[in-house]
């Protein structure tokens, strides 16, 4: 952040009249404190490294850094040399991005030392590079600098055009960072051009923005207060002006912005002078003059002011002292109006001292300079218009870039909104699809289960019908009728329960019993069955998936009891295992023969397996199943024991 502020100061500094905003000040102090010779060796080393690597981009940056370094130490010649090197490298490589930065920096160097022509040339170079690299934000920064520069050379029309363009770009980019500063600068230009109303307008615009202090640099804020003071002064509200300058002093002191304090004091002194309070003016001017790190312009101005005040006080010696001080300032050549003022003071002072020869000398110099200034003013106005025509073309290019930016912004916004909407729609669609998929799967699951449940019945329905037919053929109507009645009740139960997902254990046991009865009747004398439910306190409340046990019983009877020559016994023991119901089906039949394990798989078993899998999928509960050949554990026994754990439905 510090660096950024620093660069702003660097670029936007310009002082000529009362409006001052010296950049260097405290930041220089800070920076100088941090920079050291150690850094110089480091920077030079970077250059070497970049040369060795043949990396022109790196090299450009390294020279740029060096230039900045020298500038911080106020070694302007070395700084400019380094910057020029960086610039030519950037130009050679068509590196417009670096070119714009370096050119801008170089231009501001010239600006500080008052070499406006060079500054203007380099600012224009920077602008070209900005356009080529389509960097609108940087462009706005350079434009405001150039505007400031033109203002200092008196080309107000051109200055205003450039500055207003800068503002326009900032507004298009919706970048309000330090926008107050821009307004203030434009205001300055209008003031210099004598358009006080516009000056006030823009200063007030800037003033309104400074409440958002995050976006406004101290420099801008100080500038605004300075302007407000200036406005009040031109309106003749001297006390109001003094108040503003007082505020400026406190802002400067609070933020260690000493130059602001110096400027405020200097301006206050001027007010006192206008009010005729020479004593107070002198006191304040002396205070102001104490600030050493001011810009050359400010120094000259302060010296002149002191000189004038001492003159009014009748202290010619002191007056001469300070006027000479101003005259001997090497930068005075850049400020002809102050120079003229100095000449005038010198003439008056010598006159009072009765050094008429000297006085005449100074008077002549003054007249000469005044004329040339006036001529210059006229010429400048002509040049102004000329330059204005030339900048039109550049303006068109800048216009293009700006409108492109506007469009880009819009398109970007639209694009983002569209994407967001699409994204939301996609997410919703995916979500809905997911839900539907799950639903479909559940339905499929259910249907499959249903189908499987009902599939078991035809299988043994035909067995039963066969048996009935048998009875009838044997003329055993009684048994046929009995059998039919039993079958009817079993069918009734099956129909009722096959469509349900769960069945009470009581009903399941009833169905199994009916089934076993039927089988018993079909094969009279073949086997007997027994159902053990001692360990079952609440069969009514236990809900299990229906008809999962029947295939095992069917198996036991069909395979276990086929070809036996002793009465078969089928025991079904049911116990409550809380989350499961354990069915143990034990028969004393043939048992499983080794080797003849899974020859054919009865359809009922397959259905059982399918149901088991579906059940696991849907309810995440396992149906455990275990089959043991009794002979394996006890050679005296024969038969099969099957243990099934059927999960209980939790009420949820």
């Amino acid at each position, binding site marked *: 952040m510090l660096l950024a502020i620093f660069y702003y100061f660097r670029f936007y500094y310009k002082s000529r009249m009362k409006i001052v905003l010296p950049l260097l000040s405290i930041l220089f102090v800070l920076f100088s404190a941090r920079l050291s010779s150690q850094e110089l060796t480091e920077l030079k080393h970077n250059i070497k490294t970049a040369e060795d690597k043949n990396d022109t981009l790196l090299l450009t940056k390294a020279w740029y850094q060096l230039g900045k370094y020298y500038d911080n130490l106020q070694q302007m010649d070395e700084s400019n040399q380094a910057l020029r090197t960086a610039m030519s490298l950037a130009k050679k490589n068509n590196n417009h991005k670096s070119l714009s930065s370096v050119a801008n920096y170089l231009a501001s160097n010239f600006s500080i030392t008052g070499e406006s022509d060079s500054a203007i040339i380099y600012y224009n170079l920077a602008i070209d590079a900005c356009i080529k690299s389509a960097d609108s934000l940087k462009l706005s920064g350079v434009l405001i600098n150039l505007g400031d520069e033109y203002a200092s050379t008196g080309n107000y029309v051109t200055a205003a055009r450039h500055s207003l363009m800068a503002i326009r770009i900032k507004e298009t980019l919706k970048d309000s960072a330090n926008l107050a500063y821009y307004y203030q600068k434009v205001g300055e230009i209008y003031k210099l051009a004598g358009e006080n109303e516009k000056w006030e307008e823009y200063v007030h615009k800037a003033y309104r923005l400074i409440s958002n202090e995050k976006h406004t640099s101290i420099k801008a804020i100080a500038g605004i207060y300075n302007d407000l003071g200036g406005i009040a002064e031109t309106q003749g509200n001297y006390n109001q002006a003094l108040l503003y300058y007082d505020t400026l002093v406190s802002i400067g002191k609070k933020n260690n912005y000493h130059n602001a304090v110096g400027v405020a004091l200097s301006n206050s002194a001027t007010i006192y002078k206008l009010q005729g309070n020479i004593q107070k003016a002198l006191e304040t001017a002396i205070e102001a003059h104490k600030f050493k790190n001011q810009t050359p312009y400010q120094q000259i101005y302060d010296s002149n002011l002191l000189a004038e005040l001492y003159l009014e006080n009748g202290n010619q010696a002191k007056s001469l002292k300070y006027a000479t001080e101003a005259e001997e300032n090497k930068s005075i050549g850049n400020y002809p109006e102050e120079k003229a003022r100095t000449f005038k003071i010198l003439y008056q002072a010598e006159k009072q001292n009765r050094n008429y020869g000297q006085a005449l000398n100074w008077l002549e110099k003054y007249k000469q300079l005044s004329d040339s200034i006036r001529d210059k003013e006229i010429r400048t106005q002509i040049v102004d218009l000329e330059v204005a025509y030339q900048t039109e073309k550049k303006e068109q290019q800048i216009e293009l870039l700006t409108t492109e930016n506007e469009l880009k912004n819009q398109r970007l916004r639209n694009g983002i909104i569209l994407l967001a909407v699409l994204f939301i729609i996609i997410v919703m669609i995916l979500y809905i699809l997911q839900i539907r998929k799950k639903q479909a799967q559940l339905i499929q699951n259910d249907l499959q289960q249903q189908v499987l449940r009902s599939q078991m019945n035809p299988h043994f329905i035909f067995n039963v019908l066969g048996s009935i037919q048998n009875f009838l053929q044997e003329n055993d109507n009684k048994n046929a*009728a*009995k059998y*039919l*009645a039993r079958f*009817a*009740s079993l069918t*009734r139960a099956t*129909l009722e329960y096959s469509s349900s997902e769960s069945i009470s254990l*009581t009903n399941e046991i009833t169905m199994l019993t009916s089934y076993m009865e039927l089988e018993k009747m079909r094969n009279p004398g073949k086997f007997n069955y027994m159902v053990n439910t001692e360990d079952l*306190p*609440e069969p*009514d*409340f*236990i809900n299990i998936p229906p008809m999962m046990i029947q295939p095992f019983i069917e198996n036991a009877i069909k395979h276990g009891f086929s070809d036996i020559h002793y009465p078969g016994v089928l025991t079904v023991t049911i116990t409550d295992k809380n989350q499961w119901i354990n069915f143990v089906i034990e028969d004393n039949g043939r048992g499983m023969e080794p080797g003849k394990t899974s020859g054919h798989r009865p359809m009922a078993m397959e259905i059982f397996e399918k149901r088991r899998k579906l059940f696991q999928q849907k309810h995440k509960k396992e149906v455990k199943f275990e089959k043991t050949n009794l002979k394996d554990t006890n050679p005296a026994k024969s038969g099969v024991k099957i243990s099934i754990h059927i999960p209980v439905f*939790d*009420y*949820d």
Partner: protein
Amino acid sequence: MIKAVVIDDEPAMQDVNCRLLNEYFPEIFLAGIANSVETGVQLIKRENPQLVLLDVELGCGNGFQILQQLKPYSFQVIFITGFGSYALKAIKFSALDYILKPVNETEFRQAVQQAIGEINRDRNQQIQTGVLFDSLQKENQGKKLVLKTIDSLHIVDASDILYCRSDNSYTTFHLAGDEKIMVSKSIREYEELLSGHGFFRPHQSFLVNLDHVKKIDKSDGGFIIMKNKKEIPVSLRQKKKLIQMLENL
């Protein structure tokens, strides 16, 4: 001599019933067979039987229409109904007797035996028929219940039943006012009838009218505390279901 008639629109069923009657109840005289509402009414008017074996689903019409037309009647009815009959619940509410098709001989014999008992005791079914017709209308079903004991017939307002307690195959109804009625039907049957009307079976041996529940004590396995302070145990398996039922009330 007990006179009986069979009203059924299926000849096969007519045959079965007649044969069964003949075989097991030779003392009953089969006075006639009818196969529709009109012929049924005519037959009964003509023969004045004490026992009517009445098919509920009679072609175009139903057995109830015959009863409507003959109100008040003095015979014993045994309904004959197929699977999934809508009327079965109503019949059960009225404690009238029924047999399912195809006929189970044992059930047939039991039903006819019962009917003979009623005929000998000179009892009539008016009250029960009243409840039957009420219960046939969905809005009224579940309001009244007929409880038949060995010696008497009770019509009970379902709302007066506090709870039922079972003891093997008997069920004792505990009514408001400390009245107790014992019937020889299983508690499961009543659970089926009444669970849609605010009754819940918290335990193998209990059926509770939720309207008379004061609160539930969740400690120690869980107890329902009735308004009359009676405590009824709740089985672990039914606990969750009970809580949900109460929440939905």
